[in-house]
Each structure stands twice: as structure tokens, then as C-alpha cells.
């Protein structure tokens, strides 16, 4: 691969041994910074009897206490307000406010200094460049520019690469599609839910076929699983006639993983992060392919609100093959983020990941994109219902679809469901974080 295909050919092709040495030095640096500048981290480490100098090898990192979202929430809301005791720079150096979406509770406040914000754009630039974004692209941003980080960094990274960026913030979906058409935009960024939703709006309300009538060739999919679910990715790519690239990140962590053009797993942005995988039940380190676990991640060089050994609850697995045909040596994940530890739940005694249901539904062409899963308790027994829509191109022929759906659900999830077939367009549509899995058992 030509070095012009990388944002930074040196870091992206660094041999593993050198990358590990690089990561160890980066880890020690951010650990020391947090210890010196954040009361939250200093107390955490002192209580654990840990000094920054105790970390001498990568293996020592496992002794550093983990953090999680609830701890970040508890540490905020006090001075320096509102960021509290994690803040590691003087408050007057903070130049932007962000917050998490609040999907799992009280939002976490996130401060950005100008330097940290440059870091965010820089990390995204690695990904966008890998997807093929160049200074000849006109990139459309169809998201609400608000307090949530969403695609803000994507905007600035695209600018940094030299793309022409079109902010489609306050426009509604129809206006956004028309603007993309008018300007002949070549790329855009959105959640998988919205990527499919925009295509549906274009077809149904505007009579536009995105694959034929628009000029989009690259789509960055982030914010929720979807681009890592093969059936969902196929639907998005067919709807838009474009390549869809999976990208992962979180407000607390920053952007940490991306697909290259080989689309053979998710590269971890190892020059900016240390990703560890732990067994969900035992906490033991998983260093080899073949077993899924929960991600523990450390972010390097982001100093205002350090993120050190953060238990993200993302379920991931190392890719079985070491080398990627793109030439990058950043380690890869199999698929991507296949779910969240919070979402994986036992139904009728069987471990269920909602993305497995999505893979089944969207792999059946007679079904629409939308679905909903509801779990309730009937007496002592779990009861699970799957609601689906018949796709508009197919006559409502439930009898033809039902056996296939039952069989695939049984095969992929090991469960039997109550099935409900709804008219097309009647299930809820989401613009951002979709809530298609509703576990109502604890509410009854």
C-alpha cells in the first residue's frame, strides 16, 4: 500500500513490539498526569496503594484500578463546576462543553481544552483518511449540532483533511437530502439508524433513489452498532450505493476504532489508545482471538478529563488474523462492537445479545428495517416478543416469512419468540440512539 493512503504512515505501520513500547510510555505519561492533576485519580490510586512509578511493564497495567461511568458521574457536579474532581487542567483552559447522551442515566459532563479538541479532530482524521476522505470530497453533516459530541469531531477532522464541510444541522431530513443532492455531496456521517431512515425518507417522501440520484460514495457510520452487523451494513450500502465504514467511540474515550477499505474488522487506533479485553464474568485478561469480552480502554494525550482503564461495557473480540491487507499494524477486532455488557441479558436462561436479533431481521429481505423486541415477565417465566414490519416491496405474506424468521431466530439466538407482523411504517422510527430492545421485566 502506498504511504499516501495513510494519515500517518509511521504510526499506522509500526511493528507490534515498537507499538507496545510506545503504548507503555504513553500509558505511564497519562497515569502520571492524572495522579498529579486530578484529585479523583489521586484518591483512587492512593486507596489502591498504587504510585505511578509502579508501572514498569504492560503487564503491570492490569494492577491499575478500573474506572466506570458511575464513578465519573459521582465525581462531577462539584467544584470545579460542573466537571468536579476529574478535571485535570485549570477551569479557564476549558474551551468547549460536551456531554454523554444520557442513554444509561445522568449524562457525564466532558470538558475540552483547545488542545484536547485538536486531539479529537486528529484521531478522527486517521479514520476518515482510511475511508478515503480527501480534499476533493464535499462532506455533509446531517446531525443536530448540540451538547452531545455526536459528529462534531468528524466535522473538524474532515476540515483538517481539507474536505469541504456542509453543516446540515437545523435542516429536517427531507431538506438535508435535497441539499445533499443540490450540492452533489460525496460523503456523509450518521448513525446506522439514521442512514437507513434517510434512505427511506428519500424514497417514500421525495421519490429519490439515493443509490442512483445522489452522489454519495462514502458513509461514516457511528453512534451505535449497525455497520458491524453484516445484514445491516448490506442494507445501508445497497440503499445508498456507497461504502459504509464502521467507526466507534464515546464521549469519555474519544474515537478509538475504525474500518479500513479492506473492511475486514475494526482497527483499534492504538497510537491513541490502549485497548484491553476482559472476561465479562471473571475479569481475566483476554489477549487472544476466540472469546468475546468487555473492553477496558485508556486514552493517551487527552489531558483535561483523563480516561484511564475505563470499563466501557462494549463487547468486543480480537480478530483471528494478525495482518490486514491495508498494511496497517493497528490490531483489529472481529466485526466491531457487537453489543454492550449492559444489553446482554439472560432471557429464559439464555444469554441474548440484541444485535443477534438485528442480524436475523435484516437478513430477511421481506422484512423492513425496523423492529422492536419486548421482554416481560409472565409469572415466573420470561416472555419475549419480536415486532417486525413487512417490507413495502413485498405483499403482506406472513405465512411465507414466519417459518424463516422462526428458524433463523432459533438458530442465531436459541430462543422462541412471540412474533407480531405490523404494517410497514408503523413501528417507531429513530433519528439517533435507537431503543429497539425493551426489557420491562424489572418494571413489573
Amino acid at each position: 500500500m502506498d504511504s499516501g493512503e495513510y494519515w500517518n504512515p509511521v504510526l499506522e505501520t509500526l511493528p507490534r513490539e515498537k507499538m507496545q513500547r510506545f503504548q507503555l510510555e504513553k500509558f505511564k505519561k497519562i497515569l502520571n498526569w492524572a495522579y498529579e492533576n486530578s484529585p479523583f485519580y489521586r484518591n483512587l490510586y492512593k486507596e489502591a496503594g498504587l504510585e505511578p512509578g509502579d508501572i514498569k511493564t504492560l503487564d503491570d497495567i492490569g494492577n491499575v484500578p478500573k474506572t466506570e461511568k458511575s464513578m465519573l458521574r459521582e465525581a462531577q457536579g462539584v467544584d470545579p463546576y460542573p466537571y468536579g474532581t476529574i478535571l485535570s487542567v485549570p477551569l479557564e483552559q476549558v474551551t468547549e462543553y460536551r456531554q454523554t447522551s444520557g442513554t444509561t442515566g445522568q449524562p457525564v459532563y466532558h470538558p475540552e481544552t483547545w488542545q484536547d479538541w485538536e486531539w479529537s479532530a486528529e484521531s478522527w482524521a486517521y479514520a476518515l483518511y482510511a475511508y478515503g476522505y480527501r480534499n476533493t470530497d464535499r462532506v455533509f453533516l446531517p446531525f443536530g449540532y448540540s451538547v452531545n459530541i455526536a459528529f462534531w469531531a468528524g466535522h473538524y477532522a474532515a476540515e483538517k483533511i481539507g474536505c469541504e464541510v456542509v453543516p446540515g444541522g437545523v435542516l429536517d431530513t427531507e431538506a438535508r437530502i435535497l441539499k445533499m443532492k443540490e450540492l452533489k455531496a460525496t460523503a456523509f456521517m450518521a448513525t446506522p439508524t439514521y442512514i437507513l431512515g434517510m434512505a427511506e425518507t428519500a424514497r417514500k417522501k421525495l421519490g429519490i433513489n439515493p443509490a442512483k440520484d445522489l452522489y454519495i460514495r462514502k458513509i461514516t457510520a457511528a453512534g451505535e452498532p449497525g455497520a458491524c452487523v453484516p445484514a445491516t451494513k448490506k442494507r445501508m450500502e445497497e440503499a445508498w450505493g456507497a461504502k459504509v465504514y464502521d467507526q466507534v467511540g464515546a464521549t469519555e474515550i474519544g474515537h478509538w476504532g475504525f474500518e479500513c477499505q479492506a473492511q475486514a474488522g475494526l482497527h483499534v487506533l492504538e497510537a491513541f489508545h490502549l485497548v484491553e479485553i476482559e472476561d465479562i464474568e471473571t475479569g481475566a485478561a483476554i489477549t487472544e482471538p476466540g472469546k468475546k469480552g468487555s473492553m477496558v480502554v485508556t486514552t493517551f494525550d487527552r489531558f483535561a478529563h483523563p480516561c484511564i482503564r475505563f470499563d466501557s461495557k462494549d463487547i468486543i473480540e480480537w480478530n483471528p488474523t494478525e495482518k490486514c491487507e491495508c498494511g496497517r499494524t493497528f490490531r483489529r477486532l472481529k466485526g466491531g462492537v457487537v453489543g454492550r455488557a449492559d444489553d446482554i441479558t439472560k432471557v429464559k436462561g439464555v444469554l441474548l445479545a440484541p444485535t443477534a436479533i438485528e442480524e436475523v431481521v435484516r437478513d430477511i429481505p421481506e422484512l423492513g428495517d425496523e423492529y422492536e423486541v419486548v421482554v416481560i415477565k409472565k409469572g415466573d417465566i420470561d416472555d419475549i416478543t419480536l415486532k417486525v414490519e413487512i417490507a413495502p416491496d413485498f405483499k403482506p405474506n406472513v405465512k411465507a416469512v414466519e417459518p424463516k424468521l422462526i428458524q433463523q431466530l432459533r438458530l442465531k439466538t436459541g430462543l422462541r419468540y412471540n412474533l407480531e407482523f405490523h404494517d410497514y411504517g408503523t413501528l417507531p422510527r429513530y433519528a439517533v440512539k435507537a431503543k429497539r430492545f425493551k426489557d420491562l421485566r424489572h418494571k413489573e
Partner: protein
Amino acid sequence: MAEYKIENMAKKIEMLRQTATELKRISGGIQAVDRNVDRILASIKMLEINISDLVGTI
């Protein structure tokens, strides 16, 4: 893979940092200088992350 002059680039990056820092030191507190230097320093930090921090590792 091309050979890159990492150490030479790192030296130039260090000179950029020194120049920017010196500019801020002599600015007399002119905000139009100080705040723009802060932005320059943030960009220099990205150069350090991409290049300078590799010195000693490779």
C-alpha cells in the same frame, strides 16, 4: 515503506514550540497574540503526538 526523517522533524517541531512559547513570553499580554499562540501550541502538540513522541521508540 519510505524512510522518514523522524529525528530531524522532531527537532524542527521543538523549534516551533520554542518559537511559539517565546512569542507568548514577549507578547506583553496582547490577547490577540496569546490566544493565537495557544492554538498554534495545540497544533504543535499534534505534531509531537504524530512524530516527536516516536523518538526513542523506533
